[in-house]
């Protein structure tokens, strides 16, 4: 595996980040040339196993480091670094959490920790976490002779919790900030759903990297039997991604991946850009305005077909929505720079073929075609 990574050339550099950022949700029509990301994953898996907890530590400031990356290699952000942004606390935490009541003795808790091989127990009262007893508290209790007293008397009360939707990189930052060994994890309804430790984060990363390493091994085997050639490059490729409402952090992943394919096929840069704008605006529309949907991009030798469908609520007045400057975006979207009321007009301007259908309560379907060869004059640049 290592050898594959070392042989990497610079031209594959961008493929690494984009592929690794997206392959959790993208489906490709065939496993095509993006071997590199997985090879890098394999490489990192090794590195991670060697230098366990330091990985999570180095991630905390978000700076690209040498973690798992051989010096001089063109990779700037390793797969591990991308994973730590992609994976959520809920992916790594231990669940269901082992809990106890405030009346339970520290002795009971000591046994709980021993039998479950854990280092801390959240204390629940009426279903809500009110404190936490850690293995350090137990050691102190044994030392000072209050091991038979109730947890309520010795537990840490002002506990800091994490939410299950937090990214792992945020969790690592919280570990560094507070110096705690573990955090109780709450869901969006503020119910305790798990406990996360630094060890959980590292094993979760190792597990995901190993999975990718296995995938690359399988692909390498497949590659030796059937070499990709130029004519295969011209085959249709379909990218599909689920787009979640409010997931502003993921906006643009599909369009970036599509750009990469178009670049590989030598498509005119201006046409690349127009297709990318359509895909990007269509994706952000789903994120901002819908309850969730799907984006599909089909690249054929002649054209790019971009289809965006969502499950609702639907556009009340399409004519109004097509007007520049009209927007129903909420305050968060606007704060992030969306909601200029130009999304649909931009899509129409950049498309060679454009269609939108919407039904209140059922959702919206947007269809756009961008031709790859026809010389279309670029959209008139109007300066305000």
């Amino acid at each position, binding site marked *: 595996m290592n050898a594959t990574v070392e042989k990497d050339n610079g031209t594959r550099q961008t493929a690494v980040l984009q592929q690794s950022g997206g392959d959790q949700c993208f489906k490709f029509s065939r496993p095509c040339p993006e071997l590199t990301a997985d090879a890098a994953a394999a490489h990192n898996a090794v590195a991670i196993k060697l230098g366990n907890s330091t990985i999570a530590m180095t991630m905390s400031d978000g700076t690209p480091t040498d973690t798992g990356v051989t010096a001089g290699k063109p990779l700037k952000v390793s797969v591990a670094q991308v994973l730590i942004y992609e994976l959520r606390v809920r992916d790594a935490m231990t669940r269901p959490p082992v809990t106890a009541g405030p009346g339970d003795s520290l002795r009971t808790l000591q046994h709980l920790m021993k039998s479950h091989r854990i280092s801390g127990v959240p204390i629940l009262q009426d279903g809500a976490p009110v404190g936490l007893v850690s293995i350090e508290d137990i050691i102190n209790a044994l030392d000072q002779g209050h091991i038979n007293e109730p947890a309520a008397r010795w537990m840490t009360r002002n506990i800091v919790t994490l939410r299950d939707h937090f990214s792992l990189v945020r969790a690592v930052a919280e570990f560094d900030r507070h110096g705690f060994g573990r955090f109780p994890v709450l869901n969006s309804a503020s119910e305790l759903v798990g406990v996360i430790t630094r060890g959980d984060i590292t094993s979760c990363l190792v597990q995901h990297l190993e999975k990718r390493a296995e995938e690359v091994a399988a692909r390498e085997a497949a590659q030796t039997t059937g070499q990709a050639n130029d004519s295969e490059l011209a085959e249709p490729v379909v990218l599909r991604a689920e787009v979640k409402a409010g997931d502003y952090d993921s*906006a643009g992943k599909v369009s970036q991946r599509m750009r990469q394919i178009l670049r590989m096929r030598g498509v005119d840069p201006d046409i690349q850009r127009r297709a990318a704008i359509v895909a990007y605006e269509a994706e952000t529309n789903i994120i901002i305005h819908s309850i969730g949907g799907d984006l599909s991009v089909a690249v054929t030798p002649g054209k790019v077909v971009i289809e965006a469908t969502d499950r609702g609520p639907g556009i009340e007045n399409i004519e109004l929505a097509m007007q520049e400057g009209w927007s129903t975006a909420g305050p968060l979207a606007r704060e992030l720079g969306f909601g200029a009321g*130009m999304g649909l007009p931009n899509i129409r301007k950049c498309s060679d073929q454009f269609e939108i259908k919407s039904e209140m309560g059922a959702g919206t379907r947007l269809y756009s075609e961008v031709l790859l060869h026809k010389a279309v004059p670029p959209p008139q640049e109007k300066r305000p």
Partner: protein
Amino acid sequence: MKTVKLMKLSSVMAVLKAEPLTNEAESDLTGCYISDLLSDVLAHANPGMLWVTIQTHRNVISCALTKDIGTVLFTCGRKPDPAVVAEADAEGIVLLTTKQTTYEAAGKLWEAGLR
């Protein structure tokens, strides 16, 4: 015919006392677009321009990539998250920050000849 006056990245940085947040490779800027609205940038900015904004969210990188904008300047001393900087670095996008306001920065760039 519009003549495009190019400006070196290094002179832009000098004029604005801008600090690089990513690796900076010398490049020629073909112009400048100022906006904090992403769709507006998608519609009006041109490839190779300097984009001046106070937005620091990850979407700025996606938007710049979509438009082939290689340099983004954050004004008013704003800096994006390290995660965003790492992504920009990986994509080869140069991020700069300056303490000056957007208005001051625009004035100085215009004066310096970036038209």
